[in-house]
């Protein structure tokens, strides 16, 4: 037990005996105070990388479309007045496959700065995100689809600035009160990206951005602004949206304060003010919640006992989250890895391509005990995925074949692996988790126990790395197994399937199955991206889920749940795709 764990235990014991907790009248009426351990990396939605930070942009900005609260499958208008469909002819596919999507823009919507929203602002927003190199996943996706490259800077390198800017310029234009996007080919998840509620695709005010020193929107000035670093971004510490809350002050490591936008086009919010406070240790946040100094926190499963039953505190455990975790097999581990012993199959190591034999992968799959893992780590509350499409997402196949613990089958596959050499010679490797990550550690401990029990010649050692080292080692392909997940910010099956299976999705490169992906998965993932025919998409999605099972790419070990706790005077909380991200507009304190 390390000092922090010991301190948590002591605090839990002592705090449990504290009579003063949970009593007293409501503090800070009209102000919602949320405590979180996640600091903020930027206030520019186009550069946001963490879903925790996107909570702020979702409350300050509006996108063109949105979802009704608690219903991620339905699209509703937001800054656009109509949801484009093929039926209402706002989506048109040309004979050359290029696609026009038209969004009629809402009138009389004011930015926090006082300026009125225009279609020109919408066009500027997306061109700006691509030109400056917005790093959020939405802009990565848009860059691939509009420009055909990972970034505008890459396109400039290949085609020159003039040609690249012409391509950028063509992507969207104003047509009366509407904005027309021109996609080189259909991209079905585009509407989902536009419906992120302001998280990454929030609409900027062009004149205000230029006044802050950002790109003024002209071709002549573009080169000066392209491919910017996060800290060079003039919008890093500023926000000006059309959303229900406006930024008052921001201190990334301490607190961000928002105040109600009383002139919000959809009606004034009920809260006057929101403070998102950063705490170093969640134990402090728990104490503050009990004392009523904080209104809302997230709690780990092992902290639930500290908040359950406390007078005045409401706990909502086991809320499904759109976060799927996987134990990924790396089929081409770097020869420089220190985690594969001598690099030869036998009692002292494994070869770098150990997992390229599907029998090894299947043996590992059958060695994992989902029930034990979910019970130990999530007290039985997390979900077992049925495939790479998350539970709750369209086209998820509940009948997709799944692996489950079967040590006899695991033994059979180990005997077949590497022509029987694995069983005869044994193997030794080191499985690594990121320090402090209980779910990663527990998953590997279960795998280790079950596999080592099959054959005394099998050895899996466990080690931990700090988060920074862990991420680096994954990217350097030094780890035989990587525990990293999928966290789609758009509810569309294309996103998890692209990330997990497409040759350019990230995992194919990390896991060493790019060629397999190109040959077997990419054409089907392309159908998911381009077909508006639900039947075709369903078929392609089912086929991909089956292929994932057949190829045993990863152990899909859980879809997460989150636990939140709040004071009972907090009203209007409805869990969304990320339960700890709040929709302040719907909330009140009374």
């Amino acid at each position, binding site marked *: 037990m390390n000092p922090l764990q010991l301190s948590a235990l002591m*605090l839990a014991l*002592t705090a449990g005996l504290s009579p003063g907790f949970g009593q007293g009248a409501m503090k800070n009426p009209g102000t919602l105070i949320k405590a979180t351990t996640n600091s903020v990396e930027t206030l520019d939605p186009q550069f946001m990388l963490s879903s925790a930070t996107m909570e702020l942009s979702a409350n300050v900005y509006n996108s063109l479309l949105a979802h009704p609260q608690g219903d991620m499958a339905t699209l509703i208008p937001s800054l656009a007045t109509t949801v484009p469909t093929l039926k209402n002819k706002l989506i048109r596919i040309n004979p050359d496959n290029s696609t026009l999507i038209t969004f009629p823009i809402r009138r009389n919507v004011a930015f926090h700065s006082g300026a009125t929203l225009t279609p020109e602002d919408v066009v500027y927003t997306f061109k700006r995100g691509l030109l400056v190199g917005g790093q959020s996943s939405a802009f990565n996706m848009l860059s691939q689809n509009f420009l055909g490259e990972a970034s505008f800077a890459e396109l400039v390198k290949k085609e020159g600035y003039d040609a690249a800017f012409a391509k950028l310029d063509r992507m969207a234009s104003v047509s009366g009160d509407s904005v027309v996007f021109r996609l080189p080919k259909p991209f079905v998840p585009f509407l989902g990206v536009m419906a992120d509620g302001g998280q990454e695709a929030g609409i900027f005010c062009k004149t205000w951005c230029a006044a802050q020193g950002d790109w003024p929107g002209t071709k002549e000035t573009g080169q000066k602004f392209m491919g910017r*670093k996060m800290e060079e971004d003039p919008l890093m510490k500023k926000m000006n949206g059309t959303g229900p809350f406006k930024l008052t002050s921001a201190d*990334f490591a301490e607190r961000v304060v928002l105040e109600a936008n009383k002139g919000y086009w959809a009606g004034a919010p009920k809260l006057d003010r929101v403070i998102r406070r950063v705490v170093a240790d969640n134990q402090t946040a728990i*104490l503050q919640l009990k004392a009523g100094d904080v209104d809302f926190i997230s709690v780990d499963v092992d902290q639930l006992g500290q908040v359950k039953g406390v007078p005045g505190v409401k706990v909502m455990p086991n809320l499904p989250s759109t976060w799927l975790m996987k134990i990924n097999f790396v089929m081409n581990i770097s020869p420089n890895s220190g985690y594969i012993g001598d690099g030869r199959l036998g009692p002292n190591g494994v070869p770098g391509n150990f997992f390229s034999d599907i029998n090894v992968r299947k043996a590992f799959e059958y060695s994992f005990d989902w029930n034990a893992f979910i019970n130990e780590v999530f007290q039985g509350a997390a979900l077992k995925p049925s495939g790479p499409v998350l539970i709750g997402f369209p086209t998820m196949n509940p009948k997709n074949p799944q692996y489950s613990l079967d040590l006899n089958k695991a033994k059979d596959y180990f005997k077949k692996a590497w022509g029987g050499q694995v069983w005869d010679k044994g193997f030794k490797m080191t499985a690594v988790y990121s320090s402090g990550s209980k779910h990663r550690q527990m998953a590997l401990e279960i795998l280790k126990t079950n596999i080592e029990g099959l054959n005394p010649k099998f050895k899996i050692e466990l080690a931990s790395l700090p988060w920074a080292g*862990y991420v680096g080692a994954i*990217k350097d392909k030094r780890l035989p197994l990587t525990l990293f997940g999928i*966290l789609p910010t758009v509810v569309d099956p294309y996103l998890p399937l692209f*990330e997990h299976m497409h040759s350019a999705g990230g995992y194919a490169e990390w896991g060493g199955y790019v060629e397999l992906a190109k040959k077997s998965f990419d054409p089907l993932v392309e159908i998911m991206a381009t077909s508006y025919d639900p039947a075709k998409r369903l078929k392609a999605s089912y086929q991909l889920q089956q292929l994932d099972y057949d190829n045993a790419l990863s152990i899909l070990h859980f879809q997460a749940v989150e636990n939140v706790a709040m004071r009972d005077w907090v009203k209007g909380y409805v869990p969304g795709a990320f339960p700890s991200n709040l929709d302040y507009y719907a909330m009140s304190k009374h």
Partner: protein
Amino acid sequence: MIRYLSKRMAALPLVLLCLTALIFSLVLFLSPYERLAVFIPNADVVGGNIPFDQLVHQYGLDQPFYVQYWSWLGGLLHGNLGWSPSAGMPVAEALAKYFPATLELMLVGALMVFPPGIWLGMHAATHHNRWSDQTARVGTILGVSLPEFIFGLVLMVLFYGWLGWLPPGRFSQWAEDAVYLSSFHRYTGMTTVDGLLNGRPDIAFDALRHLLLPALAYSIGLLSTVLRMTRSSLLETLNKEYVMTARAKGLMERVVIRKHALRNALLPVVTLGGTIVARMLGGAVIVETVFNYHGMGMFIVSAAQGLDFPAILGASLLIGVIIIVTNLVIDILYVVLDPTVELR
């Protein structure tokens, strides 16, 4: 003495250069992707779709070591210590913001360590083997052996959880709101002082309320150390011949102790002062985390966890300067306390 001080000050840049080169060379052991991790926030709130290669190239992490070091040194000469992704601001700005908070904590801590530690040490020595001496001896063993984070947590549960007197953080909600207003000038960055300078004693008092527990948490062990050192040093001095001579002259015991014995007995305590400053800086890391007190300690923790090299280098530079200056001050105090000491 001036020559000595000039020599020490002249050596300062060289010492700091060596320090930064040493820390910077650690970069060699990490791949660009490992150093990039600081730009990728929390382990469990990001997905797999991260533009690693784009970020590595943008931040020049794929450049050779000497290019990166030279570029950092060039920035340093222009007062630019680089960008700290973990703090979300330039390193120099982060240090200017967080160091005064920690300094304020250290000063309050020093008030809890030195005056009571020296007084109690004197009392224990002059009441050798009596009950107060025995109590002090047992108390100091307890004080030294109690880990700061456990003591801190117990204090917080008692004084915040039970009694509601001394909350964590740097301010209460109302004071925080007032401090963030543009009308509140942060002259020193130390809220107690700034509260008074702004004519807001209520804010100064609120800041002091928030300082008491963290300062107490890391002072208790240091107070025990000072007490023990003062006691043993004074006991030794009281047996010296010149003290006996003073007593033989018929001087009052109070005068013998204060004027003759204590001055010499304090020399080891002064030496200890340098170690205590270093220990306070180290202790701030734990205490600030436990009490959610946003200072240098929390800044260093988040920088170290994320391998935020610009922040680590900047903080190391500042700590290096503090330690060197503290040692200089101690050297000067030596001369003041003992005229036989000469600095060359």
